[in-house]
């Protein structure tokens, strides 16, 4: 697929500090790409640079192969769905959606037809004459999306568009947005700090931290194969275990973990080397008897949280170390607090992290 948006070594400095630092990224045509990160990580600034509201301090942005250095926002083939919707309060829903087409001097009959079509698409066919204030949050959200997509943009930029909605509506809108994107085949660049939202919707996730890209990959890669400690920690829950390599046994390196040992697949590690690994709680098993496999850590039940379909355990494995375990509720016996247990996982399910 061809590249739709290209960021070439883009940086943005506010005062003396970098909001975005040396970001390079190729976004393919028709891709649903999510910029994910905590607040202040530079994801919104990156989006605003693509929209043209901010000018990069250095580096260039290309849209459809065209360099955007001196192109004003109103000349770019992108449209934005704003976090606060920013629907014009003095215009009706119809006029809000028609605004972009009017600016492009599209014929009146065509405007009418296209606006009515998107109104139907976002299930607001009868709401054209209302003012934005007379709509619920979810309806305003749909108008904001309609106002952007009616222009047939090459790229749609979405800045935390679901942030103001309640959980249930948000889940529903996530799926609707995803369907809409597949239907229209528009490139979506979506900004969110909600990792679950990112995993649900995206073709590709770019995790950002402190103005830089930590990792870019499919939701599967980001979740299962986090490359850095930040990504492992930010996406979902995980156990991060750090320790020195004590010995190399066959194909595995042993890592000291308190007074016990865990193993990771060996990859030219040296004895004495300090390393960090991530193990997801759902990859870890809980037993009442010592296990035969490579890893079997002895511990005690410190905390148990029952959340319906799942049970979350915190196991104290000694020396102040804890291991989070998550199992489906039907799989586990009811263990009392302070019961002696053994936790185990397949070493191949742990991921070695870059610092």
């Amino acid at each position, binding site marked *: 697929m061809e590249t739709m948006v290209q960021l070439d070594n883009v940086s943005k400095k506010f005062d003396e500090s970098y909001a975005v630092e040396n970001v390079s990224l190729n976004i393919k045509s028709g891709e649903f790409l999510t910029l994910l990160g905590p607040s202040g990580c530079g994801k919104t600034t990156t989006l605003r640079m693509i*929209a*043209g*509201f901010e000018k990069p301090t250095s580096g260039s942005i290309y849209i459809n192969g065209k360099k955007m250095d001196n192109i*004003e*926002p*109103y*000349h770019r083939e*992108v*449209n*934005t769905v*704003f976090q*606060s919707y*920013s*629907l*014009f*309060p*003095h*215009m009706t829903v119809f*006029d809000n959606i028609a*605004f*972009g087409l009017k*600016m*492009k001097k599209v014929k009146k009959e065509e405007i009418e037809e296209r606006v009515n079509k998107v109104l139907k698409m976002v299930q607001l066919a009868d709401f054209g004459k209302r003012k934005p204030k007379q709509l619920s949050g979810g309806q305003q959200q749909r108008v904001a999306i309609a*106002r952007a997509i009616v*222009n047939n943009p090459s790229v749609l930029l979405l800045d935390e568009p679901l942030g103001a909605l309640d959980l249930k509506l948000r889940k529903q809108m996530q799926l609707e947005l995803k369907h809409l994107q597949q239907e229209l085949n528009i490139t979506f660049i979506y900004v969110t700090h909600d990792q679950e939202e990112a995993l649900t919707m995206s073709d590709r996730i770019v995790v950002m931290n402190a103005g830089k890209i930590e990792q870019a990959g499919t939701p599967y890669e980001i979740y299962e194969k986090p490359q850095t400690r930040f990504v492992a920690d930010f996406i979902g829950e995980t156990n991060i275990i750090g320790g020195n390599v004590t010995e190399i046994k066959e194909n595995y390196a042993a890592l000291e973990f308190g007074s016990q040992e865990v193993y990771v697949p060996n990859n030219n590690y040296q004895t004495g080397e300090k390393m960090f690994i991530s193990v997801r709680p759902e990859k870890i098993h809980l037993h009442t008897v010592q296990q035969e496999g490579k890893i079997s850590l002895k511990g005690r039940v410190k905390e148990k949280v029952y959340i319906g379909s799942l049970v979350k355990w915190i196991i104290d494995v000694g020396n102040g170390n804890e291991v989070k375990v998550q199992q489906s509720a039907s799989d586990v016996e009811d263990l009392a607090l302070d019961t002696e247990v053994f936790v185990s996982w397949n070493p191949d399910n742990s991921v070695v992290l870059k610092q």
Partner: protein
Amino acid sequence: MDRMIKNAYSMLSPSLIWLLLFLVIPVIYIGVISFTTNTGFGGILYEFSTEAYTAAFSSLYAKVLWQSLGWSLLATVLCLVIAYPFAYYIAHAGKWKNLLLLLVMVPFWTNLLIRLYAWIILLNNHGVINNLLMKLGIISEPLSLMYSPFAVIIGLVYGFLPFMILPIYASIEQLDRSYLEASEDLGASPVKTFLYVTLPLTFPGILAGIIITFVPAVSVFVVTDLLTGGKLLMVGNVIKDAFLIEMNWQLGSALSILLMVLVLLSIVIFMKFTSGKDRKFLI
């Protein structure tokens, strides 16, 4: 709910009593006087008469009334034209904002009367402007700037400009910048963004500015008194003279009531024309 309304009234009561005593009752009193019979030298005979209104509608007073409305209208328009860019600039002036606002308000600390004397020094035949223009050789004889409608308009614009700047500034300041970004995002150039988004969304400020400039401007009398030496008249002068010099309270009251009705009427027409659906002319 009932209790809330009761509470609201009890909290409002000081201002309601104030308004009743010093606004409503005097206005009713003026209205009553305007229909009484004049017995000369400020005498009031409580006998119904429309004499005062007949006089007020005579060509002389009617002309002054229209003239006052015309000048104030022109001054209001000029104030708007000057104030809008000014207010826009202040709202975007960053750290200078507070200083600029203070400068707008400084004139309020001095009486308009005193400030108008300054304009006499600037405008008169041997004044600063004429002297300067003559020294520069642009004119050979002094322009008679004083005693003209020009001087009246200058006085009005000067006196009431802050009333126009402040509400417009407030509305521009409150305008959410994301509306402007949304507009640009949808393909509107800065000029179109201004016309279709900024202007309509700051319209309440413009409306407030127009009303609080126009209303006091139409009834002011010190401007004509000082800058035309009483040669040109606004309705404020006529009302003042009717009460204080001619001692004809009926005529003064009738003119006041007429002025009030005219001002209210023009505001109502203006708001009707510019609010709600009809504001579409901006889009």
